[in-house]
Every structure is written in structure tokens, then in C-alpha cells.
């Protein structure tokens, strides 16, 4: 009986934790350091397209606003949600559930984008986080070593 009770209690407890402030958070400075690690967390911006395009964290990706329509790759790992006051608590809770069920460890950026900016950390234009290859028509090199003039004196 005991283990079962414990299980029920822990499920209840985690449900309460999820519904209340007490979600694992990460401070802007700490996150900024993690971005330089070999395997940094995945940064998901859930504020929607408009806010995302206006300026976001380096490496942050637009995850849309709909947790139900979000499908992770199944490899798990740490995720940091980039949100702000515009994201309601229920929606945030739904995001956390969705990602936790997909074996991610989820953190929320403490104080959202405002706190990041207040910490003096840089925001970037969203397109800097993506590449758009193919915008320039290009020719695939035919040879292995076609650029054979040294570019510059090494300094």
C-alpha cells in the first residue's frame, strides 16, 4: 500500500507544482552562459510570430503558439521556453506538459524577454537565427580546390 500512496502523493504534488509558480526557471545570465556550452538547451520562443520577429534571443527558434500542434524530434534534452506576460498561465502549462511528455527537461526564462534585455543581454533579429540558402543562385564547385589565391596576410 505504501508505495502506491507515495506515488499518488507525488503525482498530486507534481500536479500542484505544475499549476503554481514553482516551474523550474533559469536566470538570463545563467542561460547566456549555457548558450556557449557544447550542448546548449533548445530555446523555444512561444510568444508568436509578431513578437518573435520583433526581436528574440540568439539561437531562439519560433515554436509557434500552439503546444498541441508542436511535435518534437523525440530526442529529449533541455528546453528553455521564451515567453512573457502575453502568454497565459494555462498555455504555458500546456507547453510544459507537451514537452515533458516528450522527455524534455523544461525551464522557463525567468522574467521573460524583458528580464533578458534588462540584464544587458542582446536580442537579435529573428532571421539571424536561420539560414536561407538558395537565395543566391549558386554553382556547386566542380573541383576540390578552386579558390587557390591566399585571401589575406595572416594577422
Amino acid at each position, binding site marked *: 500500500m505504501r508505495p502506491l500512496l507515495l506515488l499518488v502523493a507525488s503525482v498530486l504534488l507534481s500536479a500542484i507544482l505544475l499549476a503554481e509558480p514553482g516551474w523550474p526557471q533559469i536566470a538570463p545570465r545563467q542561460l547566456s552562459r549555457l548558450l556557449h556550452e557544447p550542448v546548449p538547451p533548445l530555446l523555444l520562443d512561444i510568444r508568436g510570430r509578431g513578437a518573435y520577429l520583433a526581436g528574440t534571443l540568439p539561437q531562439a527558434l519560433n515554436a509557434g503558439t500552439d503546444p498541441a500542434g*508542436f511535435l*518534437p*524530434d523525440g530526442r529529449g534534452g533541455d528546453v528553455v521556453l521564451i515567453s512573457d506576460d502575453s502568454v497565459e498561465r494555462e498555455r504555458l502549462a500546456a507547453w510544459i506538459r507537451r514537452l515533458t511528455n516528450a522527455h524534455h527537461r523544461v525551464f522557463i526564462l525567468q522574467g521573460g524577454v524583458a528580464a533578458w534585455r534588462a540584464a544587458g543581454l542582446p536580442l537579435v533579429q529573428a532571421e539571424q537565427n*536561420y*539560414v536561407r540558402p538558395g537565395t543566391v543562385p549558386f*554553382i556547386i564547385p566542380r573541383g576540390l580546390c578552386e579558390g*587557390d*589565391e591566399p585571401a589575406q596576410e595572416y594577422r
Partner: protein
Amino acid sequence: MSRPRSIADRAGPAIVALALASLQATAADGGKGCADCHPRQAAAFERSAMARAAVTPAFTAERADAADPRRCLRCHAPGGGRGVACGDCHGSGPHPFPPLEQPAVCARCHDAPGENTVRSFLDSPAFAAGLRCSDCHAVADGGFNHHFRGARSGDLLRDAATLRAFLRSEGDRTLATVTIRHRAGHAMPGGTTGRAVWLRISGRDEGGRERLDRRWRFGWNRDREGRWHDRTLPPGRPVAIELPLPSAAGIRHLTIELTYRFRPGPLDTPDPDAVILDRMEIELP
């Protein structure tokens, strides 16, 4: 004449005569004279592609087509031998040889249009962490080793790059976002214009028919005016691609694949050495 004495100090008196003889040993002979006294270094360096950079079939074939074939040797065999030789890094001697500064000593050949290895290294987390080229390319059993292994030798490409992906909905569209991150100490692929990393996203419908096939090349591209564009993967930060899936295609199954290629040309041209760096499959609901 203080250095020859220090050689003698370290190597013992018996070597003095040899060391003095080595004052005459210069790099002019392509390093043959060096091998007599430094067999360990010579044997290790022999394993690097650098040691035979001017005699490989790929090089001779390409050089035969080159507008100015003499230029090629400036990097592939400055001393005129089979490839890069001792003196191309250490200088033409004689002893004592100056300590080598990395990456300056490599820049002469690894910094050119289509060769941004050294430049991108200076902008990498590896450089910030105090690593040198040799810490990744020239180590064995914890110490420096002249084998200068590349992408084709050993396990340098193992776990060198990883994919992450997710799908999301926006209105009635589904978008795939794919990121690539790598651990090389410089842009990937390191090396020259012909090397490339290809990302391929393909999709199949319920019946297994291919409905989507998109490819991206990361490497050096040339535009129609003949200018080079650096489209290599930068070190230390991920690169992301967002692809709206064609909604009418009924895609149920996505395959995302990252391939490292040594041969030039499109992804379909055969390359016996090509390596799949990472691959993932995603089932759509």
C-alpha cells in the same frame, strides 16, 4: 651557438657529432635528412594526407585541368616533393628550430578563398577555450603526434555534428524546423571548396511514395559572376532552417539526413568516403 649545446645537453654527448652534422640538414631535401634522426615524427607525419598532397589521383587530375598548375604546389608541395614537408612548417633550418606558433604556421595554406579554416578558428569556442589545431588534429596517447589526422582518418567525424528538429503548426500549415550544430574547432566543413555538408529533408506519404526532397549544401558556393560565398557551418552556434511542408502532399513520414562529402558536385555524385553525420526519422500524426 647556444642552441646546439642545449641539444647536446638534452640528448647526451654521444649525439653531439650528429647534432652538429644536422646543422647542415635543411628542408631542401623534402625532409629525408630529418627522418634519419626523427624517425618517430617522420613516420607519424607520413600518415597525414599532407605528406602526399601533390601525388594523390584527385590532385593530379585536378591540377591537369588548372589554368595555372604551378600555383597549386605553393600549398601542396612548396619544396617540390610528394607533398608538404618538415621544412614547410618548421622553416628551412638548421637547428635550432624556432618554436611554432599555431595557427600562424598553418595559415599560409589553410587561409585562402575557399579555405577559411584558420579565420573561422579564431572566431570559435575552441580558440576561446585555448585549444590549438594540434589539440584536435595531432594528438595520440595524450601527446603531440605528427599524424595530423583529417576528416577521413580516425574518428574525427564521430558525433561531429548533430541534428535537432521539430514540427509546428501555423494556421493550416505545418512547418519543419531543423537545426545543425557541430563541434569542429572551425567552420564545417574545414578545408576547401569541394568539401561539403549536405542536409536533405525528404518526406513520404502513407503509401511510402516520396513527396518531398529538399537539399541544402553547406560549403563554398560560387555565384554566376564567379564570386565565392562562404556557406559553411559556423563554429559554436547552430544553424536553423525552416521548411513549410507542402500541405496537399499528405506527408506522414519525414527523414532528415546530414552527410559529409569529400568529393565535389551535387549530393548524387558518388563519394565512397561520404559519411552520414546524423539522421532522424519523424512520424507525423
